[in-house]
């Protein structure tokens, strides 16, 4: 069982909220075989272009993911992102005002005790397990690349003046490289998955995120409180957060995991 919460806010400085998010939790029917899908996008581009881009990215990715019945989950995710990219580009060519719009896009699929993800841009996915928080996505940003290249430290990246520059996005070029989870992440009861845009992770520290998750526990509250915290900290950008709480793993899955863990540790 997964409980999902979400919240979004324009923030304190922007004139428009250009973020979008969506989720689908099919309990029965053919879609249920493809699991629970959460997706979040942070749009870019003036004159409402960013808003258009993020809405298209989110809705196309979701529809495309469930439309595809035959491919594996990672392949479906990749196809969903590529379709979102194509559709945003197509839309951007219809109007002068929309022509340079783009968006980040991050999605996770939770199916049974496994999680798959796909990512383009600098929106993030975290797993929180008690007092530990780990980012499972990689930012496609100028500063993240600098850190990877060894030019600056992670601490320096936090305050770098160019931390807003991203190096990959939906809607800019026909060719798109999507980051995909090579292996599914095995989930445990009590873990939380958080998807968020840089309006949250740029304003609220990991420590503050853990504190709020532990204090408020329910995904809906957690999202609201995280948004409040980002606003308290200045809210320089739009803020969007989605939280999925893993609150019940099926007995079969538990047994399977125990077995897998046993065989892995026996090697």
């Amino acid at each position, binding site marked *: 069982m997964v409980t999902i919460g979400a919240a979004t806010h324009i923030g304190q400085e922007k004139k428009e909220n250009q973020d979008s998010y969506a989720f689908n939790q099919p309990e029965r029917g053919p879609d249920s075989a493809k699991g629970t899908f959460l997706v979040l996008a942070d749009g870019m*581009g*003036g*004159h409402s272009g960013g808003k258009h881009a993020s809405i298209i990215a989110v809705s196309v990715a979701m529809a495309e993911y469930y439309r595809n019945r035959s491919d594996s989950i990672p392949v479906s995710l990749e196809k969903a992102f590529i379709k979102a990219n194509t559709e945003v580009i197509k839309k951007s060519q219809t109007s002068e005002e929309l022509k340079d719009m783009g968006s980040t896009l991050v999605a996770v699929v939770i199916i049974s005790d496994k999680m798959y993800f796909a990512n383009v841009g*600098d929106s993030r996915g975290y797993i929180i397990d008690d007092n530990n928080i780990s980012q499972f996505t990689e930012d496609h940003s100028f500063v993240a690349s*600098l850190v990877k*290249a060894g030019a600056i430290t992670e601490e320096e990246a936090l305050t770098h003046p160019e931390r*807003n520059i991203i*190096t990959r996005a939906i809607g800019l070029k026909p060719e798109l490289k999507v980051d995909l989870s090579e292996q599914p992440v095995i989930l445990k009861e009590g873990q939380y998955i958080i998807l968020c845009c840089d309006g949250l992770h740029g304003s609220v520290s990991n420590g503050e995120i853990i504190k709020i998750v532990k204090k408020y526990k329910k995904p809906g509250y957690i999202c609201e409180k995280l948004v409040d915290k980002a606003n308290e900290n200045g809210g320089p950008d739009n803020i969007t957060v989605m939280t999925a709480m893993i609150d019940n793993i099926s007995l079969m899955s538990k047994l399977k995991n125990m077995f897998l863990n046993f065989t892995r540790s026996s090697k």
Partner: protein
Amino acid sequence: MIDQKMGDYTISRSLGKGGFGSVWKAESSEGRQVALKVLHPQVLENQKVVRKFFHEAMILAKLDHPGICRLLEFFPDGDNYAIVMEYIDGTELKDILRTTGKLPFDQGFSIAKQTLDAFQYAHNNGILHRDIKPANIMITGNGDAKIMDFGIAKMSSTASHDTAASMLSIHYVPPERFDKNSEVDARSDLYSLALVFYEIFTGGKPFEATETSEIMFWHLNEIPDPPEKYCEDMPPHVSNAILKALEKNPDDRFNDFKEFSDALGHDDATPDDATVIMDTTGKAYEKAVTAAAQARQPQTETKPAGKKLFIPIVAAAVVVLVLSIGGYFVFNKSGDTAGDTATAQTAAKPPKLEEITHPVDKSKMILIPKGEFIMGSEAYSAEQPVQTIHLNKYYIDKYLVTNKQFQKFVEKTGYQTSAEKNGKGMVRIGRRWKEVEGASWKQPDGLSSIDGQDDHPVSQVSYKDAASYCKWAKKNLPTEAQWEKAARGPNGGMFPWGDSEPNDTMANFDNIVGSTTPVTKYEKGKSFFSIHDMAGNVYQWCRDWYDTGERKPKNPTGPKTGEERVIKGGSFVEGMESIRSSNRDRYEPSYSSFLFGFRCACEDL
């Protein structure tokens, strides 16, 4: 957009889009073909970026080199801003490299030398490109290289996540760019250009990485193969020069483009007085270089940049407004002859000055004692004759009237300036002056507010505004003679500080700063009588109607009637010649410009 009008231009077709906006081919009302770049609305949302570019545009407009695509003007049009560039009929080097791979050595060498020449010229004029890549170099049918987008590309790289234009191309970025604390200078552009040369001669980049972080790592750490390895016609000294320009540490590279060009050597295949260049069809063109050499004159001059800039600046500033109404300024190319007329400033001791605070506007004023001074110069007919003039004692403001002082005047009187009444004021955009809506003393260039600039001179004021302030403050504008004496002292120095050429510690001129500066800033540039900003910052209205010829020898006040009032002192955009103290210009009393301010004088308190 097709067939739509923007300013005086009719758009004919799309030429593509860049990080900063869309590009259109357009035709002026006189039939001139231009490339019109319309800035993205989201780029314009960043006022800081626009402001910075706006100031830089004025400098860019002065670049006049056959290897640089010219910026013709920069103007607002409704919500958009348009940059008008020379239209170049050619192919991007990027596309040539994509289709042909590497270029034949001689052809590549010619392009390399031309681009180095163009960049050195821009560098001499204080301009860096900051985004050198094959897509920014256009090759014409004659094989001539034209550098595109000076200063413009930078706008997109300063944009934020809010714009999709923020996707950085890091293939040509120097390693120091990855260190936010390190300054980017000409050696950074040199590195980027060397990477372009590498591609021209070898047909590929020196790295194979495709991931951003891997490319960054390469720039930071890895040593390129010598390009001669992939280009058999390349002499070793050319290969070594490219490697030197690609050094990781800027200190190990050449200091400027000329050094790089010298290290590449000369193209021995070309005769002395003609350049043979192959076009893309293989046909050879013989191109006399006499004309090009003349056009390239500026970069071969060894004089300081300030002097070189004089002609374009003055021409741009004055041609439209003055020549069209029958002005008769004769521009002196050397700028030296003015010195013939002025008696050399003797090493007079600084006078003991009487400084008072004016009771109404609290300005500091200096008492200029009665006596003679030398007025005028032989340099230009408008400044002739050189005369000894006697003036009675008078007080003159030590500093220009500031925004804060003017604000107080407006608060007390409810005064509305000429620009406020018109809803617009004159702003120089690129090479042209335009009436810009919303420009007023509170927003002199129509874009940037004076917030935080209390101690800057008030600007975008007409003669009428200046005179109204003076009347309120129970003072007057200085006569031209009073102004000139306060600037030159008794001995008629060329500049307030004497005859030596100005530099950036003495005056705000020549777009070194690109905007007004606090009125107390240039202590080193004060006059014999300790008056500040008598050269540069903003032009200053004088009381006199404009006239020429012999002046009254005692307390001249100009003619009784006239159509235009005198302004003196030059401004932050003018070059050295215009900030000479004898320089004069004139405008109608209601003319309001973002370069015009004033100071007050009075005979009695």
